[in-house]
C-alpha cells in the first residue's frame, strides 16, 4: 500500500494542507527564526523551530532504530554548505523561505509569489549549468561512497551509525535532542533575563518620575508661599 503513488500523493497533500493551515494561523516562518534572532534578538520563531527539530529527532531516530520509515539516502558533501549559504542569503533578501513563500502566497502576498517564480527560474538556470559541468555533484559523483574528488563524503545518518557502531540510532537521537533542548532552555533564560531587565528599568523610570514630580510639587509649594509672602 505504501508504494501506491496515489496514496503517497494524498498523504503528502493532506499533511501539507494541515501544515499550511497551522503555519498561517501561528505565523511561523523559518526565515524569521534565523533573521529575527540575528537582527532583533527576537526568538519567537526560533523556539518553534527548535521544538519541531526536537520532536522530529526523537521520532525519526526511534523509527530508524527498528528500521522503519523512509530516511533520505543522502550524500554528505561540501555542496551542502555552499548551497545553503546561497539559500540563506536568498531567503533573507526575499523575506520568505520555501515554506513561508507558499504560505504567504496563499494569503495573497504577490511579493512571495514573485519569489517562488524566481526560485523556479533559478532552478532552471542551474539545470542548464548542471548539463555543462559534472561538478556540482551529479549522479556520477554521488555514488553513496566517499569520493573526495567530487567533494562527497558518502552517506552518514542515524541508521548507518547504528549499523557501523552497534549503538541504537535512538541514542544518537537522544544526544541531539538534548543539545537542541539545551539551546531552547538558554533562549528561555535569556528571554526571562531580558524581561526582568525591562521590568526593572521601567520601575526605575517610574521611581525617578515620582521623585521629580514630588520635587516639582515641593518647589511649586515654596513658590506659592513666596508669592503669598510678596503680596
Amino acid at each position, binding site marked *: 500500500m505504501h508504494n501506491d503513488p496515489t496514496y503517497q500523493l494524498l498523504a503528502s497533500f493532506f499533511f501539507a494542507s494541515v501544515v499550511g493551515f497551522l503555519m498561517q*494561523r501561528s505565523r511561523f516562518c523559518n526565515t524569521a527564526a534565523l533573521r529575527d534572532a540575528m537582527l532583533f534578538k527576537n526568538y519567537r520563531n526560533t523556539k518553534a523551530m527548535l521544538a519541531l527539530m526536537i520532536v522530529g529527532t526523537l521520532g525519526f531516530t526511534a523509527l530508524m532504530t527498528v528500521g522503519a520509515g523512509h530516511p533520505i539516502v543522502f550524500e554528505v558533501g561540501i555542496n551542502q*554548505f555552499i548551497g545553503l549559504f546561497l539559500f540563506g542569503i536568498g531567503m533573507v533578501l*526575499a523575506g520568505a523561505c520555501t515554506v513561508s513563500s507558499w504560505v504567504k502566497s*496563499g494569503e495573497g502576498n504577490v511579493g512571495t509569489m514573485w*519569489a*517562488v517564480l524566481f526560485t523556479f527560474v533559478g532552478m532552471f538556470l542551474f539545470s542548464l549549468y*548542471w548539463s555543462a559541468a559534472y561538478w556540482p555533484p551529479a549522479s556520477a559523483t554521488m555514488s553513496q561512497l566517499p569520493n573526495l574528488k567530487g567533494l562527497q563524503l558518502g552517506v552518514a545518518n542515524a541508521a548507518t551509525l547504528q549499523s557501523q557502531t552497534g549503538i541504537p540510532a535512538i541514542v544518537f537521537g537522544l544526544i541531539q535532542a538534548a543539545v537542541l533542548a539545551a539551546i531552547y532552555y538558554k533562549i528561555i533564560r535569556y528571554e526571562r533575563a531580558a524581561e526582568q531587565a525591562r521590568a526593572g528599568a521601567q520601575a526605575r523610570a517610574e521611581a525617578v518620575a515620582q521623585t521629580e514630580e514630588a520635587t516639582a510639587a515641593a518647589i511649586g509649594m515654596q513658590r506659592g508661599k513666596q508669592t503669598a509672602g510678596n503680596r
Partner: protein
Amino acid sequence: MEFFKKTIDPVVAMVIVGLLDIFLFLVVGAWTVGGGETMITGLIAKGILGHRLDRIPFWVQDFKPTFAYWKMYISLGMFFGAFVGAVLSKEFYWRVPRHLNEWVMITIGGLLMGIGIRLAFICNVSTFFAITPQINLGGYLAVSGIIAGAWVGSWIYKKVLEA
C-alpha cells in the same frame, strides 16, 4: 468564526507539525519542499519548451517531469492550507510590495534560493526538519551554511533598509 481568528502559539503549532512529520516519514518520507519545486519547474519548462527540454540532461537523468511525484503535492498543499486559514480568519488580501528595491531584493533572493537548493540538493525544510533530525551529517554542514548565509543576508538587508 471567532475560533479561527486566534493566533496559535508557534511552539504548539510546530509540535503538532512535528508529530505529523513523523507520520509522513513512516509512510513516504520526511517533509521536504525543494524537490517538489524542482518538479514544478520541470513541468512548467516542459509545457513551454516541449520536446526541446530533453536536450538538457538534468531533466532526463535527474528529474524527469511527471505529475506522480509526491513532493510536489506538499507545495500545493501548503498553499491550499494557508489559503483556507487566511480566508477563514478573514486575513486574505492582496499584498503588493511598493518599493522598487523590494522587488529587486525579492528577485535576487528567489534566484539565490533556486540555485542554492539545486546546488545543495536540499532546501531549508529538509535541512532543519528532515535530514538533521535523521542525524545525517550533511545536515550539520547545511545548518552551518544556512546560518552563515542568513547572517550575510541580514547584514545586506540592514544596509538596504538603512540606505
